[in-house]
């Protein structure tokens, strides 16, 4: 890693520079000369494993600090809302590494067990778990869900230097849960239908009794008109 600083108002010919990792000094302090109006500080570090990752900073005197973050590629977007599925059903959870980032060598899936993570071994229980990994994507299928399967799952993208984790939540519900609002709605509909039917019946009774009177009158009238029309036609 290389830091370059253009200096401040007092262009001192020499300045001390050193590297820090996670806030702790590493290596000895160096004297950095001013070359071409710039101070250059270079550091070479071997990345051997997870311990080599962290926040590196190069410090110039007591005035300038530049930070580097060395880490494995971060996991792509994962669902932050819980994935809901039904008991007895199966659920598919997926993790994805963003496109331009390097693909992991392999994927691991873990189930949270309290504070621990237990590795899921798909080969051991093929009827329950199935892991399908392809380059930057991986999916875990859990079959025959039970309440015990609910909780947090971790997907790990394994790189040489470390593993990136993503966390997903799975919720298992029974069919009764959505059934409750459904039944509430059905009851409401039945009530409405009953109310409308009653209203219709009431208004029908009123109109029938009312119209029966008018019908009788009409019938009397029509009898008379009948004969008159026939008479007219004869003309």
């Amino acid at each position, binding site marked *: 890693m290389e830091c370059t600083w253009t200096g401040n108002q007092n262009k001192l010919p020499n300045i001390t520079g050193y590297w820090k990792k996670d806030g702790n000094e590493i290596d000895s302090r160096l004297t950095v000369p001013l070359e071409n109006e710039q101070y250059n500080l270079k550091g070479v570090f071997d990345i051997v494993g997870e311990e080599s990752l962290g926040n590196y900073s190069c410090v110039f005197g007591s005035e300038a600090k530049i930070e580097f973050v060395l880490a494995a590629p971060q996991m792509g977007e994962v669902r932050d809302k819980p994935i809901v599925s039904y008991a007895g059903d199966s659920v598919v959870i997926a993790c994805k590494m963003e496109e331009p980032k390097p693909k992991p060598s392999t994927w691991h899936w873990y189930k949270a067990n309290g504070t621990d993570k237990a590795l899921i071994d798909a080969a051991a229980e093929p009827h329950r778990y199935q892991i399908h990994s392809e380059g930057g994507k991986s999916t875990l299928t859990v079959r025959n869900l039970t309440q015990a399967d609910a909780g947090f799952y971790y997907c790990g993208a394994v790189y040489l230097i470390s593993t990136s984790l993503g966390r997903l939540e799975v919720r298992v519900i029974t069919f009764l849960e959505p059934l409750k609002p459904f039944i509430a709605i059905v009851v409401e*509909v039945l009530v409405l239908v009953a109310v409308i039917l009653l209203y219709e019946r009431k208004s029908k009774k009123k109109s029938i009794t009312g*119209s029966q009177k008018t019908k009788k009158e009409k019938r009397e009238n029509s009898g008379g008109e009948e004969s008159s029309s026939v008479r*007219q*036609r004869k003309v």
Partner: protein
Amino acid sequence: MLPKEHNSETKAAVMGLFRRDATTTKKEKEKEIQYVDPPDGGWGWMVVLHCFLVNVLVMGTLKSFGIFFVAFQDEFGGSAESISWIGSIMSSLRLSGAPLASVACAKLGTRVTSIVGAVLVSGGFLMSIFANNVVFLYISMGVIVGMGFALLYQGFSVVTALYFRKRLATAYAIGRSGMGLTFALAPFTQLLLDQYAWQGAMLILGGLMLNLVASGMLLRPIYVKPSTTSTPTSSPVQKSPAASLKSSSDKEYPKSCVNGNNSSHLTNGISKSDSFPSPPPPCHWDTENPAGQSTQDPQDRSVNPELTKLVLNGVNGHEPHHDLSPGKPRSPDSSIELNGSMNGSTIVGFSSHASTPGEVPVRKAKVLDFSLLKDPFFCIYTWSLVFSQLAYFIPYFHLSARARTLGIDAMDASFIISVAGITETIAQLASGWVTDRNLFHKYHYHKAYLILCGLVNLLSPLANSYILLMVYAVFFAIFCGGYMALLLPVLVDLVGSEKLNNSMGFSMFFVGLGCLTGPPLAGFLYDYTQTYDCSFYLAGICYLLSSVSLFMEPLAQRWQARRKRAQAKTAESGWKTNGCFTPDPVHKGAV
């Protein structure tokens, strides 16, 4: 035929009717038919409520269907295209299923049709819970739900047209404004999905659709006095429809009375036996004295061809099932008299036996009335509708994409669309209210809106910034809402509320065909030209095309009037030779 003979035949028919009358009296008591004027309010507002609910739920489902997309893809693992077919089947069947819906309306009644539609929709949703592959969803969500939507749509449109005449535009606009609320249904669906997974969401949505059953029961059947449906067509003067209705109704009352006999047969939901409408009492005074009233003769004669159609429908066979109004015994008389062109014995034969089997095949032919396709007004309307609906979807589809290419970010783009949606809803209400003021014929408004829509779209490629795009969206929404609110009223004006059932069925079918091609065509244009401007040009041209046919309306009126006169002349000659009345030797040789 000598007058005396004719009279005795008449008498026999009348006596026969009386006998049948006595037996069917009981039936009538329960099913009293009251003929009322369209209430233009009162219970009609309940119908509008149902209409509103249908629009909210149906259009909401169609629009928020995309939310289920990801869930279905996860569950069934199909390609994006195969999953999107579900939505396409649903929305296209809503339109293409309309002829079937109109048959159902005619046979079962609008109330039953709406309830069946609601049951189909919720049943489809509930069935989809058990889906285990995409094809199952094609059928349960696509076909069943789509057909249910079609039935619901047909039901409420026809009933709204019956309940409202003067305020049809307002009522229809209020009902349609339910579409504006669909934006609320999308987040709700998302919430359901998050809480209960797609199966639970389907379950609850299916339950919500059951509410449509309850509101469908509000569609009380109403038997409307036949109106002067041919008024807009026959009055050459460009009076406001309401005024012209009143003035010409005086002239054409006898015509419309018998028209009522004919066309109300096709009215929604009037099923065979007991609901045959009798002409209103004053009518009989007219048909009673055709000889004496020479001034009415031409009009009566012009009715003949329609009345012959009436007889073909076997309607006469239903006379016995009339309720007891003074008009009843008269109807066979009038039809016999006026149908001089028909074989007299055939008519009596029809009226003397109410045998349903003999009439059913003829009835079926009228339920799906293909002759409507030759009706010039229907053609005008359908042409206009197909192009305007084709053009309607394109701007909405491509507006957000265009915004993105112009560098506007997604949040602002969706803001434009929601503003457009709200503006459209308000514009619909305003347009409906304004149209009901009746300053001009409704189709003039319709024309104006369509032309303005077309112009706005043609000018839209000039909009390059957020503000201009917003301006375009607002104007487009205003004009769009304007013409949308008038879709039903214009159809009622052109075709008449009696033929509404059939004409809606057919026009929706053609619209469905058009809608299938709209968005893919626009997409193809984009792929070809790599710019969204072309789709807006296409939309603008389609709107202008759709307004063109409406200019032909006066021509169609004149054509129709000429045809009616020609038919009247031929009928008149036949009528004269039958000798129902003292033949006029002067006219015998004419025609």
